[in-house]
């Protein structure tokens, strides 16, 4: 292909957008609407996942040791190192018996603690183990129970099950809804593109009669559809970026009690995935739509 033909193709693609302004607007509006819904849902899902993740990070398994181990600092540290190296473990915090008693006094006894001369929690040195993924709690607990010197393992099966369930549910629901949204988008967009191409069936026929190759006919349509797809994707990205912080402000203002639990992601984090994904979907839909629909009219 000559350079002049290449630039001609690009120029024709851009000109086509303006020549068929109504069709271009309809296509851009359809793609934008679909990708706006997709973007909103994507942002909500990402935030839900983040909230569940934050909750998971706060859940710890506590492991207590026998008196012999408590009295042996070296042994205690060895066990701590082994636990910390486990794949399920995010981090561990050592709580000495004295620290445990201090915490207990502060949390429950207050001034009533003065009658105690010795540490009643002398054998309570422990490790608080935070997990990377709550789904790994069962295997970790099973392992901890098998470690010699471990006296007791405290954990909440209910919390783990609830968080794990929430995680799975979000994954399934998001896959389902994103799938449906994409299917609806492709249907709506291909209909719009087909309508536009059938308007230009005559144009394609003329080009073929004059001796244009399939590639020469198709290329400007592909450029046009790619651009329409990209513009259609850029608009909802802009809207979401503009509205996101304002929407978060409203939610946090209405539900101040939940502010500690509802840790929302900054828009930059969402953009990191949303922008390339939306642009790829927009361009992909434009590309496929034009390839498939132009092909129908090329057999002249």
């Amino acid at each position, binding site marked *: *292909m*000559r350079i*002049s*033909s290449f630039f*001609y193709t690009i120029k024709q693609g851009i000109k086509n957008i303006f*020549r*068929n302004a109504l069709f271009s607007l309809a296509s851009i509006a359809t793609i934008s609407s679909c990708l706006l819904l997709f973007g909103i849902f994507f942002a909500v899902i990402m935030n839900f996942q983040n909230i569940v993740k934050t909750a998971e990070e706060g859940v710890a398994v506590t492991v207590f040791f026998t008196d012999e181990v408590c009295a042996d600092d070296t042994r205690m540290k060895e066990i701590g190192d082994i636990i910390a190296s486990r794949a399920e473990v995010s981090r561990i915090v050592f709580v000495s018996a004295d620290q445990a008693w201090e915490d207990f006094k502060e949390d429950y006894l207050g001034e009533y603690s003065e009658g105690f001369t010795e540490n009643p929690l002398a054998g309570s040195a422990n490790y608080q183990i935070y997990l990377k993924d709550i789904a790994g709690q069962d295997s970790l607990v099973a392992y901890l129970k098998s470690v010699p010197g471990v006296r007791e393992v405290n954990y909440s099966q209910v919390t783990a099950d609830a968080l794990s369930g929430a995680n799975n549910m979000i994954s399934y629901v998001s896959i389902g809804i994103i799938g449906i949204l994409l299917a609806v988008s492709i249907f709506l967009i291909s209909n719009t593109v087909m309508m536009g191409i059938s308007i230009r069936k*005559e*144009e394609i*026929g*003329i*080009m*073929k*009669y*004059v*001796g*244009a*190759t*399939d590639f*020469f006919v198709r290329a400007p349509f592909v450029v046009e559809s790619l651009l329409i797809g990209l513009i259609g994707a850029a608009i909802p990205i802009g809207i979401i970026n503009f509205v996101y912080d304002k929407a978060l402000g409203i939610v946090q203002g209405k539900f101040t009690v939940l502010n500690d639990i509802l840790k929302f992601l900054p828009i930059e984090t969402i953009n990191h995935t949303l922008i390339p994904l939306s642009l790829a979907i927009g361009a992909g839909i434009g590309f496929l739509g034009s390839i498939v629909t132009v092909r129908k009219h090329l057999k*002249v």
Partner: protein
Amino acid sequence: MAFGRRKKVKTFAEDELIVFENVTKTYSTGAPALNGVNLKIKKGEFVFIVGDSGSGKSTLIKLLLRELIPTDGEIYVNGARLSKLRRRQVPKYRRNLGVVFQDFRLIKNWSVYENVAFAQRIVQTPNRLIKRNVPAILSIVGLASKYKAKPVQLSGGEQQRVAMARALINKPPILLCDEPTGNLDPKNSLEIMKLLDQINKRGTTVIVVTHDKEIVNEMQKRVVTVRKGVIVSDEEKGGYIDED
């Protein structure tokens, strides 16, 4: 001119450009549109193909455009067997034909310049040559001043001239015209015919499919009459033969 595969090259007389050999075309609807047609057209000829509606004229044009393939028989254009052309070879073949239709078939939202230039763009003519060639051909068809106009801003006669400019700009050896005066008044029809005559005199083989009796009788060229898919007469300097 060279196009198409030539595995089975058949020898023809040197000046035979188009050869129909016992060509039959049957549509799925039943009766053959063309039935055992034999026709030879020499280089540089001006041929009218005439007949009433449904006689098979348009099928003949579609076969020459390689839009259709004969059900039986063969068509050779400059020695190339059309039925053996691969789909991807068809655009290259068509570039050797200038085509003019009754309904002009101009791209409506393109300017006159763009409509004509397009024929050059598809053969990858450099831009600087397109800028020289398009005004030249437009001045030959008498539309140099209307290069910016859109087809809807032109009269029927002018639109047909644009179509002719587009058909001729790549200097094709064959010009096919399907009812070129069908949508024109008598004055414009005659002017278009004069233009076709000039083009023919410059060496282009011109084939005009028409049922315009007056034009055919006026021009005194070779006339091939098709009736119910069969050639019923083929006369040099002939006239239009009425069905009854």
